[in-house]
């Protein structure tokens, strides 16, 4: 392995993995003989099982690397020159950890003391040295996607089985972590523990951590275990280790590479998402056609004006922003004597469904559920209806996610529709990802084919061209595109993919001055809120980061108005669900708590961004990002409604500085939200 003592000396010099003092103290026969420690170790010591330092135990290295032992290779040189680059580890923490296990109180003091001193040996900060060459892992890694996944799963299983061997924590260990454990978080994240009536802290310390459950929102058990294998080797509870020692050693409690790293790590292909959705979907029981037949008889034999609608789900049973809009529109249609049938896919998806075979579709007639039907049977039935003499039917497509476009076109054909309206609630009509994000992490305009940005995107690689499919509607029917904002319309037009018969902008709502004002509160704390659902594309992780970095800032009180966040973090949760009645719960909730600033950092271009309007109506200033689509346009063009930041780093910096306290005005007007009539605002305008 190493041909000369001189070469060996060159390699170990400067590395604390060889400690002459330690060697001579541990081996008094060498010291008594007056021998040089490194000379003795190189020529004799390692063969006799003597370790070169406390930091490098050759028995541990041999036990973890049987191939080195079998080959009769001197382990320290091997580790420094090759082992590091091969990812082999030195289990140097074992001895310390024995102490930790046996006496956690002493261990706390010990690790606190050493945390003040920097690590002496630079090599200790480097777990690997990379020796560049091609093929260096040719024999050990054939990394195609499926084997990689299997390998990773196998590794997790091995790790899990190893964790099972860790003995139960002592009372002292449990006591040491008690103040760092978040009971509210644990019970909300793991309702099975709540249901079982088990003490959550005891559950986590004895079993939960082995199942990679987390003790609070700031500590990832899985991350800590996978990045601190020495802790597992030492048979220690990772959370206890972090609290007692790891945090002082500079070990991290969570992956520091940001939320986009997490998203990319878990990114799935569209096909895989569809497969998983199908797996968790119970096909509904099919209905008879009685209600459909009765409605068809009505609209074909009377002069009733009929609207054929499409949405991504049953908007009467699900409650969300778009669903509320559609309910409001339905009420408007009913008030104007339109009769309304609306179709939605039985299997909801975040893309269109490319598979026409066996497609099942649900129907609402004037907002009442009419049943689920095999699309082929429904279409056959519709084709038999004689619409001669009936009023011309118009379609209103709010959303085609989950739909099969051929089914949609066939239904419209069967209804003998000639024209209708297509709402731009999202961008599914121009890209395979409905929110225009590349790989769910970045908005870079409408991706252009043949550019790296396009082919790098998981969505672009999908075998179905969603824009082409949805384009069938535009190619076959005279279709008016209705956008809730000019900004969204600009993006859509810039794609150049479809020819709409006309385009309209119909904002979901406008601000109406109430004449009321809000005077800047004379209180010590600034009130800053995230408004909306805690989702990645809404920029929730950016807000989370701001609150995390502001934990020591007593001058700001953070809130989350909406749903989807975890407890036990540096903000107060104010659950606000969309009101089924169409009211403005959010505005009143924000007003009641006198929120000064709303952070709405969407990383995708919002087609409207109702929450920004709600925040402004409640007298809050909005902080947002350039990429947030209409939110940025709204904030910027209206002037005085807030600030737009070119990137999230600038936004975060602003929030961490005293600048944020300058954002609220002394006097802020309050508004009422005046909602549109949706399609009825433009119906027949052409």
């Amino acid at each position, binding site marked *: 392995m190493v041909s000369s003592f001189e070469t060996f000396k060159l390699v170990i010099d400067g590395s604390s993995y060889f400690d002459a003092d330690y060697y001579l103290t541990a081996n008094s026969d060498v010291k008594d003989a007056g021998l040089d420690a490194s000379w003795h170790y190189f020529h004799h010591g390692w063969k006799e099982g003597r370790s070169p330092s406390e930091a490098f135990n050759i028995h541990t290295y041999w036990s973890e690397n049987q191939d080195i032992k079998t080959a009769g290779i001197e382990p320290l040189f091997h580790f420094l020159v090759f082992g590091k680059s091969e990812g082999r580890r030195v289990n140097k923490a074992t001895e310390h950890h024995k102490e930790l296990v046996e006496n956690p109180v002493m261990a706390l003091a010990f690790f606190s003391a050493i945390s003040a001193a920097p690590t002496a040996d630079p*090599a200790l900060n480097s777990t690997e040295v990379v020796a560049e060459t091609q093929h260096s892992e*040719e*024999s050990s890694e054939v990394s195609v996607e499926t084997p990689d996944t299997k390998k990773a799963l196998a590794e997790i299983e091995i790790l899990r089985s190893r964790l099972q061997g860790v003995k139960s924590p002592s009372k002292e260990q449990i006591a040491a972590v008690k103040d760092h454990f978040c009971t509210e978080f644990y019970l909300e994240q793991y309702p099975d523990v709540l249901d079982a009536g088990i003490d959550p802290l005891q559950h986590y310390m004895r079993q939960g951590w082995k199942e990679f459950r987390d003790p609070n929102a700031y500590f990832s058990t899985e991350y800590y275990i996978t990045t601190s294998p020495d802790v597992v080797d030492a048979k220690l509870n990772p959370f206890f280790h972090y609290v007692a020692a790891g945090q002082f050693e500079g070990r991290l409690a969570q992956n520091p590479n940001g939320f986009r790293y997490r998203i990319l790590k878990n990114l799935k292909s569209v096909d895989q998402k569809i497969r998983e959705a199908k797996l968790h979907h119970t096909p509904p029981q099919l209905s008879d056609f009685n209600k459909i037949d009765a409605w068809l008889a009505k609209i074909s034999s009377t002069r009733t004006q009929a609207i054929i609608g499409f949405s991504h789900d049953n908007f009467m049973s699900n409650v969300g922003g778009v669903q509320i809009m559609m309910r409001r529109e339905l009420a408007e249609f009913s008030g104007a004597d339109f009769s309304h049938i609306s179709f939605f896919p039985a299997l909801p998806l975040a893309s269109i469904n490319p598979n026409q075979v066996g497609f099942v579709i649900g129907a609402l007639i004037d907002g009442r559920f009419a049943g689920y039907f095999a699309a082929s049977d429904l279409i056959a039935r519709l084709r038999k209806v004689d619409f001669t003499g009936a009023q011309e039917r118009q379609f209103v497509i709010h959303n085609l996610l989950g739909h099969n476009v051929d089914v949609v076109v066939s239904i419209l054909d069967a209804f003998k529709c000639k024209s209708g309206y297509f709402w731009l609630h999202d961008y599914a009509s121009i890209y395979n990802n409905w929110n225009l994000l590349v790989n769910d992490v970045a908005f870079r305009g409408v991706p252009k084919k043949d550019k*790296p940005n396009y082919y790098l995107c998981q969505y672009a690689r999908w075998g179905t061209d969603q824009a082409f499919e949805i384009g069938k509607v535009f190619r076959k029917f005279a279709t008016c595109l209705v956008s809730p904002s000019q900004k969204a319309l600009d993006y859509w037009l810039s794609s150049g993919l479809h020819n709409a018969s006309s385009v309209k902008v119909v904002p979901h709502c406008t601000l109406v001055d109430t004449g009321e004002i809000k005077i800047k509160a004379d209180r010590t704390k600034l009130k800053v809120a995230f408004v909306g659902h805690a989702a990645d594309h809404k920029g929730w992780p950016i807000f989370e980061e701001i609150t995390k970095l502001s934990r020591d800032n007593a001058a700001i009180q953070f809130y989350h108005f909406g749903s989807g966040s975890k407890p036990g973090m540096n903000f107060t949760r104010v659950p606000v669900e969309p009101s089924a009645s169409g009211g403005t719960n959010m505005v009143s909730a924000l007003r009641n708590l006198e929120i000064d600033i709303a952070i709405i950092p969407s990383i995708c271009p919002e087609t409207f961004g109702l929450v920004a309007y709600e925040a402004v109506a409640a007298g809050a200033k909005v902080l947002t990002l350039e990429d947030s689509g209409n939110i940025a346009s709204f904030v910027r063009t209206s002037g005085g409604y807030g600030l737009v930041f070119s990137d999230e780093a600038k936004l975060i910096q602003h929030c961490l500085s005293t600048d944020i306290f300058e954002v609220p005005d002394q006097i802020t007007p309050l508004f009422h939200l005046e909602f549109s009539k949706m399609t009825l605002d433009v119906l027949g305008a052409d």
Partner: protein
Amino acid sequence: MRVLCYTSFTFSYLNRARTLFDSVKKFHPDWHCVALMTDKLPDGMQLNVATESFDQIVWQNELGIEGIDSWLFKHDVVEVCTAVKGPFLKMACQQGYDAVIYLDPDTCLFSDLKPLLSQLEQYDVVLTPHTLEPQETISAIWDNEITPLWAGTYNLGFVAVRTKGDGLKFADWWAHRLLNFCYDRPSVGLFVDQKWCDLAPALFDNLKILRDPGYNVASWNLNNRKISIDDDGLIWVNGSYLLRFWHFTKLGATGDAMTERYAKDNFQVYELWHWYRHQVANNTSPEVPDRYWAFGDYDNGEPIKKVHRELYRDTPALQAQYPRPHETGSQSFFAALPQLLKDKKANG
């Protein structure tokens, strides 16, 4: 400029080579792409060049290497795949091309290499250093400065030569050294084909050290290279250099760990890796067995250990006595091995 572009690999890396040549052909459809293969076709597999993104396969026995069985045995898979790069470069320089470019199979182009061709109008040899800037942390110094001190300053995942002047001289010199001294032996100052090129700037005058950070981006220089992707869909390095090619070294856990260490929250890097994994998976032939290499075993199926290869290559008498050392008959090197190893141990 007539260009021959080649890479060197075994069947286990066919998926990477296909991905590389897909990208080369995308930007340079006129280049002649050669797969330099040191391996044998796995049982049941067929390779049809007409359906591949490379134009030609050159096998190890077409390089004119004397005593090829003995020569192969002296090298492990890393050593041999780097060693053949030299003799092939020399051969390619005599085939009427104006330039020959070597790219590792785990590299991939993201934009054209026209600026490199411009450099080759002026220079005869072009090399890319592992890193272009001094490191700032102790950890990075160990990873990205001390490692190149023994593994080589220039990354030989890439080299470009003109088939004239110093380019020819370089090819001659490198071919000779790699035929005779392409070993992974840092203790004596050797590190396969790469360490040799530390001498190249001194030995060859008309040589260009390319300092464009868009070339040969990899985990060892990521801490000085910020990747961004603009709204036109182009990928940039440090804001103003187009990403020319990436070196996806160590596809797997080790590569991930090193990439994460230096990419940190530069998420565009993970987008590139995600795409690359997908491409490699798509380009994988299921007929290639896991960890396949035809020259990794004796003819009885026993794996050839590194210590056997070292014993053989360090002992000229054994080479003369056993010109086909992978064979396992009664009078074979394999049969003599137990005693040879015992003798070696006894002799220290």
